């Protein structure tokens, strides 16, 4: 069975079709029926660290396509934190092999997303340190040098986050923007962990847990202000985050999913609706 097309994906697809003037499979056979289709030049945006021309994913696209460079930057770093949170849990249980992919993800999947931004924000590059940690996690996971490299990696990510002004890191709108990106990614990962109502992919279950745990941590930074300024939104967001957290009772998945991917998407949408 295919995954269901979510409303937000439909919206994204439509907005992209409009934005890019693209229409997949709508072939124009130039020369057979006249002129080739002429389109306006596609507006493209250089993505930091990605080189070349990268068109962002339409208006209000999912994930990093927020159009807000600060939220995108924070989201990538927050995803790194989420990965390392579950890696740490697994290391504490002595599950070094299970921890290894989560140690790899920050440098393999996310660093390229912030590489250019680090220079712009005068933050020292730390790819070499992430690579060294990844190498050690594979070759000497139980050695003290690996633990030291892990601690250093966490500090370097925190340092990159601290490059954002404190006022921004405490700003509800900014933090909720980041949380929404984290939770959407978590929902995708959670769905990709399940087949036939069973957990079949441990890595994706653990990924999504890490993102939800870090979302909770981020929300704590703004909870007090939300309670004072937006009590109704705070109540819904806070209780929904708590409900979401029950889906991942531990770093090891439950025997069967506590909630379906659709239910998780629903909870994530509730938080998003209350965020603006």
């Amino acid at each position, binding site marked *: *069975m*295919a995954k269901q097309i979510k409303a937000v*994906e439909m919206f*994204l697809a439509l907005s*992209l079709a409009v934005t*890019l003037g*693209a*229409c997949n*499979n709508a*072939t*124009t*056979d*130039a*020369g*057979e029926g006249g*002129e*080739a*289709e*002429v*389109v306006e*030049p*596609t507006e*493209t945006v250089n*993505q930091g660290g990605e*080189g*070349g*021309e*990268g*068109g*962002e*994913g*339409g208006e209000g*696209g*999912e*994930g990093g396509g927020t159009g807000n460079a600060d939220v995108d930057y924070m*989201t*990538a770093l927050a*995803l790194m934190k989420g990965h390392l949170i579950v890696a740490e849990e697994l290391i504490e249980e002595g599950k070094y092999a299970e921890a290894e992919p989560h140690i*790899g993800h920050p440098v*393999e*999947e996310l*660093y*390229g*997303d912030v590489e250019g931004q680090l220079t712009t924000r005068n933050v020292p590059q730390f790819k070499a340190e992430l690579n060294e940690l990844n190498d050690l996690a594979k070759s000497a996971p139980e050695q003290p040098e690996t633990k030291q490299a892990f601690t250093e990696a966490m500090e370097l990510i925190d340092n990159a986050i601290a490059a954002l002004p404190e006022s921004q890191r405490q700003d509800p709108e900014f933090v909720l923007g980041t949380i929404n*990106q984290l939770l*959407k*990614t*978590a929902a*995708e*990962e959670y*769905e*990709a962990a399940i087949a*036939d109502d069973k957990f*079949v*992919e*441990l*890595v*994706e279950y653990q*990924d*999504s847990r890490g993102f939800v745990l870090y979302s909770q941590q981020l929300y704590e930074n703004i909870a007090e202000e939300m309670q004072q300024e937006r009590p109704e939104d705070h109540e819904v967001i806070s209780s929904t985050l708590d409900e979401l957290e029950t889906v991942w009772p531990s770093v090891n998945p439950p025997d069967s999913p506590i909630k379906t991917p659709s239910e998780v998407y629903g909870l994530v949408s509730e938080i998003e609706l209350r965020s603006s």
Partner: protein
Amino acid sequence: MSNSPNYLKLNTWNRRQFLTWGLTGLGMTVGATILGTRLRQKSALVQIPPLPEETALADNDFNPMTLLRDFDYGTLKEENGRKIREFEVTANSSTLQLNSAITFVSWNLNNRVPGPTLRAKEGEFIRLIFHNQDGHSHSLHFHGTHPVEMDGVEPIRHGKTFVYEFEAKPYGVHPYHCHIAPVTRHISKGLYGLLIVDPPQPRLPADEMVLVMGGYDINNDEHNELYAFNGIPNYYRDRPIPIYQNQLVRLYLLNMIEFDSAVTFHIHANMFQVYRTGRTMTPDEETDVITMGTAERHILEFAYPYPGRYMFHPHQDIIAENGCMGFFEVIPA
């Protein structure tokens, strides 16, 4: 369904139909298309049998029988006097029913494994709009020649879009695949496909099809438990590919099996001509077995002189017996 550009028009015909390639641009019967005057070759006949009924799989989003001859020519556009062939793909996860018992979470493009068979002509400018809707970061790395910014090794995070743009060169058969580590996992879960770059002068008309060999590591132990041609294990074993007797078949063959070093593709009861990497217009060799490491690809050409049902498979027989097995059903002309 394929959507041929004007430089290469091919229509599928049943036994009562045939494709005429010509130089004149004359009108034809409904559905037939004449090549433009740029072609410099004599008329030829390509006959493709009608597809068997009931080829679709209820539990999967794509049909390997139609995927076989499905070439995506994208959308031809013109910008500032330059022709651009534009493609659009979306990476996401979806479940594949590999057999009646095994449901596998695949990462793929456009809900199919392999991804779309993209096709352009050498020298054309390609634009590929890549959306990533999966939770993991992904990328598309194309084999072939292009600038470093377009090399597809940088991660494109969930929810982002990246536009790859490069000139289609050199002509040949070029794999594309996700290049995010662990690459073994990103590829074996399904993020791969073919870009065919046609030569300036077209090859002879033929019944063209794509076969991509892939492996599935079901339990993440870095060993494949299942293998497949075009995504679904044993699909063409249970549903042979119909071809006509004496019809030239052009096979675009790619090995994207991770964890196993190499496979030796073999067709039964016949020989084939090899155009290595699709980089030649004349055959490099003739054989009935060819060993291919991961990411190696070739064009193979053959025609079956005798009707019947003929196996094709890698000659690492354990791989064949775990899903990488198929048949050609040669129908009397």
